[in-house]
């Protein structure tokens, strides 16, 4: 009897591990394909899209992408905008998520609906109105022009997430701190903030990549090439009548790498954060 059970549980373990692993492999494949396509030439590519390149030392695409355009500058611009937006989104969603989850105050329902309304509107609908408004108040054509729109587009998801996470956290700790004489702000920072770290990190990841890849607002609000973000810069490779695909792939790969590196660096933080949240004392 014992042997049967361990065999069954052994198989179970394999299945449990295998299914996600298989799925994970399909997720890596595109990045791998993108990577080895960057070493092909366009004729090579049109002969066979999936094949491995003739030589892995064909760096012409890379040298073209990295020298022809100020890619590094664009990367800095993107990073700059992304970090600022990230900071604001995490801050705002923490505050709003907390208030909306814990308290009922006049206008809390209206606030809630307002923030949720972002889910109902497609981005291209408000592109031109935002541009007209920004032109009139002088906010367009600066390096910081896209920061406010990006914040708005990310707030909804983040507030949503923080709020539903807060609903699962009991109020005892905050009430205990309040009885002990802690001020509201102090409770917020020292008690609540550490508790919601996992979800704030999640919000951060989600927002980071949305803003990193953001295109429509950048296109409309930037006119000076010095301000261009990465997606804007990389679109230049798409020609009117045809496209040199390996070159486009190279530029896309170059844009992905920093984001992935940053993501991998922080993923350790994420796991730690999640485990910390799971330990309930």
């Amino acid at each position, binding site marked *: 009897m014992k042997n049967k059970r361990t065999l069954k549980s052994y198989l179970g373990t394999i299945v449990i591990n295998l299914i996600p692993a298989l799925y994970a492999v399909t997720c890596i494949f595109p990045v791998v394909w993108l990577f080895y396509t960057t070493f092909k030439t366009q004729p090579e590519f049109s002969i066979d899209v999936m094949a491995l390149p003739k030589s892995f030392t064909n760096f012409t695409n890379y040298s073209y992408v990295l020298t022809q355009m100020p890619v590094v*500058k664009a990367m800095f611009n993107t990073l700059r905008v992304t970090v600022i937006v990230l900071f604001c989104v995490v801050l705002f969603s923490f505050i709003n998520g907390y208030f909306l989850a814990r308290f009922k105050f006049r206008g809390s329902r209206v606030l809630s609906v307002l923030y949720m309304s972002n889910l109902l509107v497609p981005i291209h609908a408000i592109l031109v109105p935002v541009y007209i408004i920004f032109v009139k108040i002088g906010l367009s054509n600066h390096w910081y022009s896209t920061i406010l729109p990006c914040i708005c587009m990310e707030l909804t998801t983040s507030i949503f997430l923080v709020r539903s996470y807060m609903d699962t956290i009991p109020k005892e700790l905050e009430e205990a701190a309040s009885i002990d004489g802690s001020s509201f702000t102090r409770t917020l920072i020292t008690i609540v903030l550490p508790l919601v770290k996992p979800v704030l990190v999640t919000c951060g990841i989600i927002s980071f990549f949305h803003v990193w890849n953001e295109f429509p607002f950048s296109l409309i609000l930037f006119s000076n090439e010095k301000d261009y973000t990465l997606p804007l810069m990389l679109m230049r490779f798409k020609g009117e009548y045809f496209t040199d695909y390996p070159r486009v792939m190279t530029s896309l790969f170059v844009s992905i790498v920093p984001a992935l590196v940053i993501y991998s660096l922080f993923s350790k933080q994420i796991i730690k954060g999640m485990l910390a949240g799971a330990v309930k004392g």
Partner: protein
Amino acid sequence: MQRKSKWLAVMLAAMVIGVTACGDSGNGQSGGTDAAEGAGTASPETGMEATSEESSTQDAEMHEPVTLTIVHEHSEEAAESIPSSAAFRYCLDKYKNDHPWVTLEETIIANSDIGDKYLALIAADELPDITYVKYTWLESTAGTGMLVDLSDYANPDDYYDGLASTTWDGRIYGMPNKFSIYNLICYNTELWEEAGYDEFPSSFEEMLSADEKFNEMGIDTISLGNTAKWFAVSYFTDALAYNYCGEDWVNKIIAGDSSVAWTDEAFVKVMQDMENLAGLFNADFNMTDDISAATMYMQGKAASHVVGGWGIATLQGLSEEYPEVWEKTRVVLVPPAGGAEGTLINACGAAVGVSSRLEEPGKEAELQAAIELCQYISSQDYATYCAEHGTTTPVKTEYDWTDLGQPFVDMSDIINETPNTGLNFNDYINDTVKMSIQNETQNVLAGATTPEAAAANIQAVQEQVFSQ
């Protein structure tokens, strides 16, 4: 753990501050860099007009510094593969050379997105100093006074289309810099000989019947990449409309004259021919792009490739990989249908104009500089450069392409000898109707709708647009 996150936060803050500092110092240099670029560019290869160096230095002393903004799509990457973009940049560089007191702030945007950018600019009344002018935008731009009247500075006789594409209400608002021809077919003489044709069929119907032979041979008759939707309309629907319906009909329907309709029998015949055409193409024509179709032709998987004037240069670029096919390639007009004479579909797809902001008092120097820039772009120099590189130009010029290869010579013959010219729907018809035509054409080709239904849908849109 907390210390680590604090450290990370500090690092991030330092990065942001550092990058901001970089950015601001970078912004201040933009003007200087542009001027340096202009001065450093090599002198023109050939020029029909020689600009005197002496007079320009004298002018420099007499002129106050001027800054102009321009939004265009002709990046260096585009210039590498598209001769007309190279020509644009060439004229721009020449202008900078001759006008050292002018700082040109260029915003370069990819071709696929520049329409969006211009829409936002027009909607907010923020056109750059030198702006694109397209025929379908004239109502919103010239009609509302956003463009400078350039009638005194451009001569219609210099242009192939007599400046029809930039004329609004009798006045001229732009100088064309792009001229394309569309309905050409490159064919592989060897493959067609195998199928029993000494030369390309001279009528549309004959071309349709050639499909059988090529099916037996296991290759496609014509390779087409219609994922962008406008290709099929430019190459076929257009010319067929001229063949069956006539020039008068086309002009009336563009103008919204209600005496003609898309549901007229003649146009339904056009759609029926489109339906019959579908079998000649490669199976994935609706989901593949033009370059893939061109490559297919060069690899010998298709007997012919339908292409616009610019495409001959593309094929020449591909010929490095596939030289045999290039040598056997000849070019003809898409054969006319219904016994009509051949019609060459063309369009002045883009022009440059000047924003009326420069007509405000105190901006005379800017206005003058801007108009001159337009004249440089739409000039004989531009035409000569284009002609030398095997592409067409809106300014009347001689095309001598004997050095470039037989296909190019064929193309210049077609330009000179085709009896009729026709306008490309995609550039002259109301945008809403145009979209409907593109989609219905794709539907008909995909077999998703009948010719009659397609024509009815287009007509419904036409009525709705012109009734307002």
